Every structure is written in C-alpha cells, then in structure tokens.
C-alpha cells in the first residue's frame, strides 16, 4: 500500500520549549579523531535582520568519512563517542555555533567522492517546511570536484563555503536577497 507523507508545518516561535533539552553545540568529546573546527554563524532575513528563533541542525560523517548509521556499510572506523548530530538554537543576535571535527569524504553519485561537508537543516517561524543546505570547508582542493557543489551556479557557490577568521570558521545563512544562501530542493 502507498501512503503520502504528512504535510510539514512551521516550527513556530516556541520551539525552545520542545527542542532546547537537546541543544548540542559541542559534537566531539575528547578523544574523537580529526581536525577540530569551531563554526560561528548568524541567520539573517530579507531585511538583514537577525533571526532570533531559528533551529539550526547539523549532520556529518566522522573524520574517516563514515556516518554513525547502520546503512553506512563502508569499511571505515566508527567512533562510539561521535554521533555527528548537532542542534543550535539561534540567540538574540541570530547567532548559532558548533564545535566539531572536520568530516572525511563520503561517496556521492556514481561512487565519486564528495568534498568534506556538513548537512544543515534550518527550521524557524515563517518557514512552513525546513530549508536544507550544506556547509563546505575553505581552502579544500576537493571542493573543485564535489558533485553537489558542481550543481550550483559558480557565482553562488561561495555562499556554501565557510570563511576562515582566526581560529574559527565563519558561515552565515542569508534567507533572502543579496548573497542569499543556496538552498536545496530535497
């Protein structure tokens, strides 16, 4: 029998009541392998106003390029203390943050390797369904051959690549207008 997926509805303004118990901004406890990265970003609306009620969720592979999920059957190490999931609820400045490790490369379409990336899902009041996007890492040669980045018009790719600023990676999300972040039809 075939069913149809339930209709999405907005997360609304009161998301903290339900989601704050599991805010995970530090994904990688001591001992997890990989290059440590500190990601800082803000969410902006069409007027450049910070969005203070967004939930930003992150899903990523470990530094070996393996997901902590039973359907990932690659012959690569799993790390019991690294799930790869993060959730940051934006503050009054629209700011979100993640401290994690840079993921390894995972296979993409046709078995071709993807560049290291974070899958980012965004919920907020005013979105009747989530936005789906990705964050890539600066100065990574693999970006040039990434099969998903290749689908994005060249002039917009920079919205998906974080910028290095001292010890942190800066990556902001612009919902609409100049420098609008690339979002995916998923």
């Amino acid at each position, binding site marked *: 029998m075939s069913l149809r997926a339930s209709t999405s*509805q907005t997360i609304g303004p*009161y998301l903290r*009541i*339900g989601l704050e*118990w599991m805010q995970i901004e530090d994904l990688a406890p001591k001992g997890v392998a990989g290059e440590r990265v500190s990601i800082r970003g803000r969410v902006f609306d069409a007027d450049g106003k910070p969005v203070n009620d967004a939930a930003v969720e992150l899903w990523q592979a470990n530094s070996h390029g393996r997901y902590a999920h039973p359907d990932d059957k690659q012959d690569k190490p799993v790390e019991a203390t690294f799930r790869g999931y993060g959730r940051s609820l934006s503050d009054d400045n629209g700011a979100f943050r993640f401290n994690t490790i840079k993921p390894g490369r995972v296979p993409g379409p046709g078995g071709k390797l993807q560049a290291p990336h974070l899958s980012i899902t965004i919920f907020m009041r*005013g979105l009747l369904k989530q936005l789906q996007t990705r964050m890539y890492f600066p100065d990574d040669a693999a970006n040039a051959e990434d099969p998903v980045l290749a689908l994005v018009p060249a002039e917009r790719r920079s919205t998906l690549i974080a910028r290095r600023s001292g010890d942190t990676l800066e990556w902001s999300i612009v919902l609409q207008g100049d420098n609008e972040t690339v979002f*995916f*039809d*998923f």
Partner: protein
Amino acid sequence: MTLAPYRRPYWNTQPEYLFPKYASTVKRAPSQPLIALPHTLSEVTAPVFGHDEVKPGDADLTRQHKGEPQGERIVVSGRVLDENSRPVPNILVEIWQANAGGRYNHRVDQHDAPIDPNFTGAGRFLTDKDGHYRFMTIRPGEYPWRNHHNAWRPAHIHFSLFGQGLMQRLITQMYFPGDPLLDYDPMFTCVADEKARNRLVSTFDWETTLPEYALGYRWDIVLRGREETPREKRR
C-alpha cells in the same frame, strides 16, 4: 554502495516557502531557485537516538511537576509509517504545546492567559519496533496571534520527528477534530490538497480512551519513503 533515493513529495501536499497569507514567510522565504539535491549517503542516513537519552517518563506531560496541570487529560498515540507503509521504529519524536488556557511557557508568548506552574508542555518518545508512539498530556487551548485581524490558532500540538534518513526529517502540527478555527488558519490551509490537510487532524479514539481518566486521540504520521526498484518489490 547504492541506496535508493526518497520519493519526491506528491503534488500539492507540501507547502511552498512563500505563502503570503502567513505573513512571516514574506521576509524568510528564499527567492533564488532551489538546487535539486541528489540523495547521497549524507541524505539517506540520520542521527540515531537511544533510551539513555529518552526515558519512559518523558512521554507523560502531566507528571513533570509537583501538582496536576489544569485542563482535560488526553492520550495522544499513533504510528509512524513511511510512504511504503512500513513502520518507522526507534526514531525520536519530540512534542511541545500550549497549556489548557492557550499559553506557552515561553518568554516570547505575551498572551495574557495564565501560565500553569504544573505544565511545561514538552515531551519525548522513541517509537517502538512497530513505529508506535504514545503521550499523556493536556488538551491545548486555542490562542490569538498577530498574523491578521482577529487571528486565532486552532488547538494543536507541535511534533518533531527524525527519520532513518535525513530526508525524512519532519516538523509538523497535530490538530483536533471538529475545531471551527481550522478553516480560518493560514497554516492549516497552506496546501491545496484537502485530503493532505485533513491528515493533520487527529481522530477521537474510543479504544485508547482511559475510562474515567483521559480521552484518546489517534494520529498516524507518514514520513517519506524510498523509491522501490522492481527487484526489491519481488523480494
């Protein structure tokens, strides 16, 4: 390793980003074309949660404080299935809601209905092996909001569900049968397909009603399903 992609949403059953009747979409909807995302290993996997994080008591919203909350106790239960009618076991379901007077326990909520000191309005459940979930809670009240003149939200409970793949992630709202506010609500009416809307409405359920204690409401939730190849169908 090749994993089948998830099916595309059925026509008119999922909302668009820009929906001016819901005023907040105007400044928050993307204006540039969306890029079609292939479903790679990154999209067909998702975080896994366990009982070390979600305790059985997390599903009872009426027992989180010293006293009983105000309002009418209800049991909300159902099944999580995918579009291929398969149960979705062991996934995290999070809910949140207003109290019986239509007030959220949240600093942004300025509605002058009283806060209930015995009601937070948050619950969690991990679906069982057959995809079942069950919450004990209070029937939430309707409340006004400022989307348009004399705007009121129908009674609803917010649901957040993880799936077995990132593409199944769903946040939605459950409504109550016979609520006269549904037809006036821009969120409920955000999709053209009337059957799709009506699937957001729970049904009264005599079988899960607890005698002399709580009314039962049943609501099944459907997450996206994978495309099936002919060979998989024969198996």
